[in-house]
């Protein structure tokens, strides 16, 4: 007889698997002009800059900005992306024909977080009157960490800011849906705005990071301006570029 808990579930210990929610950071390849002869040479060049970072990285293909009338063989395109050791696993947006082909290739439709939210912001009821806006999101206090974030640990401030009043070690990873503050040296990886908030920022007292990223746009330590290293900086997104400035 299988033990059944009050919630009607099979007891966790007996289950042959565990089902859990998790969130992962993924890169998005925004496809603007797939027909360009320069597309794959440019992509290969990008991958060559940080081969270890890109190798077998799962990516989402963003077709949002493709023109409606585009003639586009998704399967062939995915094949060529794979040649760069990138693994397309999903797509989002795009003309209907492109979406159909993408599904046929086994790509998963990813929710278009931002756009969907904007549409939902002012729904209209059957009589054409705007319904009341949804309640303001409940305030979520920042996740405050006072101990050093050690190598090998991952910290995620879900739906809020992350404040670390110590250092983040090499090989540690800090993630937040909001801003990240490090009142110490940032030596590991810091990814802010991972659910797409491009207004998120990263602040640290000493920039020595392996990777910094805001809303999916990242920079590896090799690409950091040497004059900013070990300095107090803030990192923000502007015009689609990461800006790193002294504090």
């Amino acid at each position: 007889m299988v033990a059944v808990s009050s919630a009607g579930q099979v007891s966790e210990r007996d289950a042959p698997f565990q089902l859990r929610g998790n969130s992962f950071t993924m890169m998005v390849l925004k496809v603007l002009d797939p027909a360009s002869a320069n597309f794959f040479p440019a992509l290969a060049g990008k991958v060559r800059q940080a081969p270890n970072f890109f190798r077998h990285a799962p990516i989402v293909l963003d077709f949002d900005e493709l023109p409606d009338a585009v003639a586009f063989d998704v399967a062939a395109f995915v094949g060529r992306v794979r040649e760069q050791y990138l693994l397309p696993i999903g797509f989002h947006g795009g003309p209907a024909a492109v979406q159909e082909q993408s599904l046929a290739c086994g790509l998963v439709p990813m929710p278009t977080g931002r756009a969907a939210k904007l549409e939902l912001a002012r729904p209209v009821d059957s009589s054409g009157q705007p319904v009341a806006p949804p309640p303001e999101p409940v305030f979520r206090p920042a996740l405050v960490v006072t101990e050093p974030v050690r190598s090998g640990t991952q910290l995620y401030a879900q739906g809020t800011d992350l404040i670390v009043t110590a250092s983040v070690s090499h090989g540690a990873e800090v993630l937040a849906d909001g801003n990240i503050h490090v009142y110490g040296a940032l030596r590991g990886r810091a990814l802010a705005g991972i659910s797409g908030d491009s207004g998120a920022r990263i602040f640290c007292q000493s920039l020595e990071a392996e990777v910094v990223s805001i809303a999916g746009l990242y920079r590896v330590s090799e690409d950091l301006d040497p004059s900013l290293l070990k300095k107090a900086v803030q990192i923000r997104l502007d015009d689609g570029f990461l800006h790193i400035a002294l504090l």
Partner: protein
Amino acid sequence: MGKIIVMTSGKGGVGKTTSSAAFATGLALRGFKTVVIDFDVGLRNLDLVMGCERRVVFDFINVINGEAKLNQALIKDKRVDNLYILPTSQTRDKDALTKEGVERILNELCKEFDYIVCDSPAGIERGALMSLYFADHAIIVTNPEVSSVRDSDRILGVLSAKSRRAEQGMEPVTQQLLLTRYDPERVEKGEMLKVDDVLEILAIPLLGVIPESQAVLRASNIGMPVILDENSNAGQAYLDAVGRFLGEDVEHRFTTVQKKGLFSRLLRRSA
């Protein structure tokens, strides 16, 4: 009630066994009843460093498996009163360490001893986890070079997440740094990390700096804890570290290059 100390590092070859042997001996010299346990199942070394390899009959794993009594496996040191060694098995592997077995033996030892020093194997797998799980104090053994420092940082993360004190929400394991194989001359040339560099990254209190010394290898080869070589820098540094561990305020030594000053030159001339 005895206190459990784990000597750990993540990285191999940094001096965990040397430090375990020295530290346990130092505590016993101060009059505390001390036992040092080898957790490196399959790579039995502690008994060699302690010079008791020819007296090993039963080991830690035999006791865990109920094949021998604890008192049959404990080896009394011939040089220092109050000092005992619990050697490990050379023929088994780390899977022989069960959490229940280790807990039972540590509980038994805690009743009889003041300090239990656990010599952790390298890595962050079962052997290392078992050696640190029950710890009250952790001594992190680190060499002044980047890979050792990073591995130490990793093991500090493991301590604050996977130890019994962390899991049960008790007061955290105290953590102290023992910087070993420190060579001030090479530090001055920029070939090694400075004490301050290491402290900045690891951000834990400094228990001691053990200078690179030929005495360490010499002592290991004859099966004598280097702390008993009181004429060596390394031996003195371990004695200092034990004092600091016991709460004494001892100034750090051997961290700078010893320059021959005018005074010592004059002395030599007159001699």
